[in-house]
């Protein structure tokens, strides 16, 4: 299934990096997200855009994961020639990720 069936997400920019939160609609499915949406999997998903490290932070109380993706904005909001210089749309791409049903 697509990640979007289990989670919602929001992107924020920090210089040349972005953070993307992945938040379970149902806290009961958080463990499933934690198992399958790993830093390695995210780095692979964003291959071609995520040139730097991907760090994952787990927030069990919120039922959420927070990913920091470094060197992902072509130099940062002010230098980038990209249409979406902030990388705002990356959360939508994150939710396109295929994960196992159970």
């Amino acid at each position, binding site marked *: 299934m697509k990640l979007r069936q289990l989670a919602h997400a929001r992107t924020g920019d920090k210089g040349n990096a972005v953070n993307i939160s992945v938040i379970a609609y149902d806290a009961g499915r958080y463990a499933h997200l934690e198992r399958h949406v790993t830093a390695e999997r995210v780095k692979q998903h964003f291959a071609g855009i995520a040139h730097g490290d991907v760090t994952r932070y787990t927030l069990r109380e*919120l039922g959420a994961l927070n990913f920091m993706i470094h060197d992902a904005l072509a130099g940062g909001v002010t230098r980038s020639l990209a*249409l979406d210089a902030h990388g705002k749309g990356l959360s939508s791409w994150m939710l396109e990720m295929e994960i196992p049903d159970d």
Partner: protein
Amino acid sequence: MNPIRIGCGAGYSGDRIEPAVELATHGALDYLVFECLAERTIAIAQLARLRDPDAGYDPLLAERMDAVLPACRARGVRIVSNMGAANPRAAAAIVRERARRLGLDGLNVAAVTGDDVLDQLARGDFVVAETGRPVSDMAAVIVSANAYVGAAPVVEALAAGADVVVTGRVGDSSLFLAPALYEFGWRTDDWEKLAGGTLVGHLLECGGQITGGYFADPGCKDVPHLARLGFPIAQVSNDATAIITKVEGSGGMVSLATCKEQLLYEVEDPGRYLTPDVTADFREVRLSDAGPDRVRVTGARGTERPPSLKVAIGYRDGFIGEGQISYAGETALARAELARDIVAERFSIIGLEAESVRYDLIGVDALHGKTPGRAGAPPYEVRLRVAARTASMREAIRVGNEVETLYTNGPSGGGGVAKSAREVLAVATTFIPRELVTYSVEYEVA
């Protein structure tokens, strides 16, 4: 002591104004805070101030004050804002002028200054965090340098009786923390309380982004009435816990999901959220349902604030020229690709001097490249976008001009050309020991 109610009247410089009026009139507020400074905003404002010593504050300042001052004055709502940008004194003068025009004599307006650290940077050895190179290497292109000051000067201004406090670069969350610090008399080393007040600020600082803005996804995340989105209110208690809500009957919604998205927005390590006031830890934060459009926030923890203040350095970083043109029909993609190839060849023929050039086909690959698993029917319409970084405005202008010439020289049916050329103001970061930054607060009554 009773809880206090803090509203957020703007999440960025150009934000909607009516929601702030709604908050001032119907929010039962004690404080109305406007957060209007993005990273680059001060650098842009500083350029305006260099052209005119009386300029350099938020362009919507007068309009916002005209809209909210009468209701705030009538209800005793005090205003805190960083709309002073690069010129808080001039901004305070504008606030007083608007107050007098509105017949609101006696309004006490404070201006907070001291965040401008250009002189301090010139006298010391500072290093650019992004590059590791000395700040002095950038001397020729630096436009502005502003330290993120904490809540202290705003608390001082409120204690002195200011009705309106106008600042330059004060930490976003600090603007919201200050009223709680002042009202509840928290110690400035009570890290748990400071973390709780900082979390409230972090949740509120983007305005509608916690009340259902930037959230809707029809079918799975529906939000009512975004055209009438209500801005947030935090009802903050003495124990630094809070309830996030909005004006009854306004559009949008406050839910656990909207609060979770904003809690992690622009956060790197949730266990170490650094501000000028405290090092906050959001890992154990608990959000719970407290009724319709009401979410209770508890559990922020904190440790000692960082020894240095972050400084945003604004600098001139070349130019960007851009042009766009659209194609329609079954062969739209082929003609947009032809147009792109023509522009690329033209740049070579005319000898465009560009540091880098980027070609996007909007509707095909502009946002995330040709993403896998997305092949299907060709799009009915495609928009070519060409953007280039150049060293001069003259070269930047040539970029859009070459796209425009596609009208009469390119593939059939191209339309809707748009072009632009602009100077780039970039932002770099350094850190300054907090003892080198001294603020001052000036008061004048309208």
